[in-house]
């Protein structure tokens, strides 16, 4: 565990970490406790892949990345905050990223390291660190992509957590988050059914009051300005509460109980973000900083 001082200044919740440390050995049992996450992982990766390809195409249609190429993250520094057993970190690395996975649970990191050591394709560019995200701010390294999947609903002080993730990005960097919305449906599915009735997820994994709505995330980034950049907010315009696709995007992740699998809901699908959802936004580029400074 971390020194007490560190815990106090971080968004890590000690009880949550104790909970996940108890379950850490089960991370790679694809039929067990984390089977839902194993099934969700390809869908999260699909969103990351499609969004990055879309942005690359928007910016440079003439030499955009070949969409059939596997290594679309090649040469990028990627941070996975709250990596758990490394499900997402490993996938990011396979797409070519230089990945750093961090987690506040030491036993999670041990499991993640062991599992990655089995795969010769990961050893070169995947590293794990037992640290809270906040302590990375002290280091000079910043990232092209920061992901934090199914973590936001477990942290204390989500606003501080979000600004930490935001600060760890390079200008023009991508932030991907996935979490659960605070709706009656989400309570019914993720807590009442999954934990209490079916027991598919360990009781006490989720706390309803910690869930965050997509509109709250969007609102946060319409106000949030990177302190180091003093630029525009990350989201400048909303149309009926919806950001433009070049600034942010929210997509529902829907579990189909018949297929026992997840799917990525189409853009703007009605009611799709009432439960699990994935969120993307992007740090403003440096040019914008220069522009806004020039205007003053």
């Amino acid at each position, binding site marked *: 565990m971390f020194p007490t001082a560190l815990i106090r200044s971080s968004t890590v919740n000690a009880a949550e970490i104790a909970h996940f440390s108890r379950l850490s050995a089960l991370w790679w049992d694809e039929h067990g406790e984390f089977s839902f996450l194993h099934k969700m992982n390809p869908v999260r990766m699909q969103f990351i892949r499609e969004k990055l390809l879309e942005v690359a195409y928007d910016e440079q249609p003439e030499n955009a990345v070949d969409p*059939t190429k596997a290594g679309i993250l090649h040469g990028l520094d990627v941070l996975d905050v709250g990596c758990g057993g490394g499900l997402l970190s490993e996938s990011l690395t396979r797409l070519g990223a230089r990945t750093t996975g961090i987690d506040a649970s030491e036993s999670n990191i041990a499991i993640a390291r*062991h599992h990655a050591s089995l795969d010769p394709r990961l050893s070169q560019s995947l590293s794990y660190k037992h640290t809270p995200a906040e302590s990375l701010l002290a280091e000079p390294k910043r990232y092209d992509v920061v992901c934090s999947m199914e973590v936001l609903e477990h942290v204390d002080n989500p606003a501080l957590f979000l600004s930490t993730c935001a600060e760890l990005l390079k200008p023009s960097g991508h932030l991907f988050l996935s979490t659960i919305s605070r709706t009656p449906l989400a309570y019914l599915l993720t807590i009442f059914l999954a934990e209490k009735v079916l027991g598919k997820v360990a009781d006490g994994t989720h706390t309803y009051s910690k869930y965050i709505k997509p509109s709250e995330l969007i609102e946060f980034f319409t106000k949030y300005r990177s302190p180091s950049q003093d630029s525009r907010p990350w989201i400048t315009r909303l149309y009926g509460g919806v950001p433009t696709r070049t600034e942010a995007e929210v997509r529902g992740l829907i579990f189909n109980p018949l297929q026992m*699998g997840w799917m990525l809901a189409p853009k703007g699908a009605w009611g799709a973000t009432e439960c699990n959802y994935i969120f993307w936004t992007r740090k403003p580029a440096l040019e914008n900083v220069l522009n806004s400074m020039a205007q003053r």
Partner: protein
Amino acid sequence: MLSSKSSRFAINSCRNSSRRVLTRKYFSTTHEECDVVIVGGGPAGLALASALGSKHSLRESLKVALVEAGDLSKVQNWVPADGTYSNRVVSLTNASQAFLNDIGSWSHIEMDRTAPIEEMQVWDGISDARIEFSAAEMSLSNPGQGMARLTEVLNLQRALLRHLELMPHVEVIDKTKVMGISPESVDGGWPLVQLENGRVLRSRLLVGADGLNSPVRSFAKIPTYGWAYDTHAIVATMFHSAKNPYHGPNTTAFQRFLPTGPIAFLPLSSTASSLVWSTKPDLAAALKNVEPSVLARMINAAFRLPEVSMRYLHDRIREAHQAGTPITDAEIKSEIQWREQSHSIGSNSAYSSAPFDMSEELLGIPPDGSELLPSLVTSIQPGTVASFPLRYNHTETYIGEGEGSRTVLVGDAAHTIHPLAGQGLNLGLGDVECLARVIQSAVLRGGDIGSYTSLLPYSRERYLENHKIMSACDKLHKLYSMSFGPVVSARSVGLEVLNEFDSIKAAFMMTAGSSPRVQRENGSLGGDLRSTAFNVAAKGVEGLTATAGVVQAMRGGLAGLAVNGLHSLLTAISSSQVKK
């Protein structure tokens, strides 16, 4: 391939040596890291290697190796003598052809050694109720290509090997046995494949394309369920005179369902066709033992004589074989002549085998109805008569778990079926097409292709699909093995009902893969085709249900039962189409 006994021994010895290696150093240099290791160089294994190797996006993400005990250079350098054909043939459905074309292997097929099947004639040996399939009436996008294409398995294998030769990044290791497979002795370890030459391949994904007695399947401890049919299949290459110009080219496949099993005549060229004759094991043994001309006469008779005479001829051959004095050509000739006379089959009838003993110049305009029957077989290609037992087998799952995780089965390692619909190899190619697609999709999402999660879509798509076609073939075999009167009359009604419903035929043929499979590059289905197939099938089944009701009223309980059997079979077939 390994026999199960030797493989068990080998697995033990390998486990010991691998433990030694592992204790020395965890990531030992004696292991070669592979992403996909395919065991088995048959058509399914070779097709998977070609499919993975041909996908540009997978090249840098996957190191693929294929291991085969036999000498593949013999297959690759196979040069058949002019006009002769190997006895192992396959009827490639349009879906299979489209897949082979997509991966770029089809262009390596020697097209002169393939023959399109444009029509099928299938009839019941007892009631003579007949069903006709024709490519022309099946609303195919390109009727000219037929409903399937017949070729030698060697032609297919050679094409795949020639294609693989252009892919240096796929390693083909032949003349090398797999000595054993063992799991790494760490938690979540990968399978280690130990080869005869001392190499050890550490495999992210181990593919069992290693046939009925799959060593990969025994390593993964995947249980398999099935039974041996009391039936052997005789295969041979048959020669016959070219079809008369009145009848056009030799592009019709014929199949007659005798109570002993179906006999099929599959066109290879204008003067050669392939035999697949499923029959009782003792009859198969006897028929394999007779002079080639006797076999030729028996084949002609099996397509022509009434069932009661076939039973008699079978008995004669069986007795002679048991007495150790195989029946002679003269004996069988007179037996058949006598039978034809007693059935009043004149020498001018299409059902007469008299032209067998006449020179070709004497033959004039073919008699009426001869288009319903295959050409008279004149001789058998020497050395092509062989037989093998038939089995129904389906594993409980296609994906290994626990100690056997990171394994997946394709083709005969996962399932074997009765050859009556010619679907065995096509199901295997369907597996391969799906597995390659699933692997590609996992790679593009950064997935670990050996993980259960990555492989699950494969087994989800293929298991039920295969099971439906397999049980349909199994039920057909059983339905037609009966000579019990009420069942026969019911099934003749069933077949004639079938003949009326082009829609059902279309649904049947689509399931059998006659229309090219819809492109599913992005996981999306061709909505149009899917809904059309649904309507076609639904209409057909509706029609049959009504007819079945009438038949039930006419014939009472038992007959109704048989029709209901056929009905449920058709429902299974059409709903499997709906699923697509």
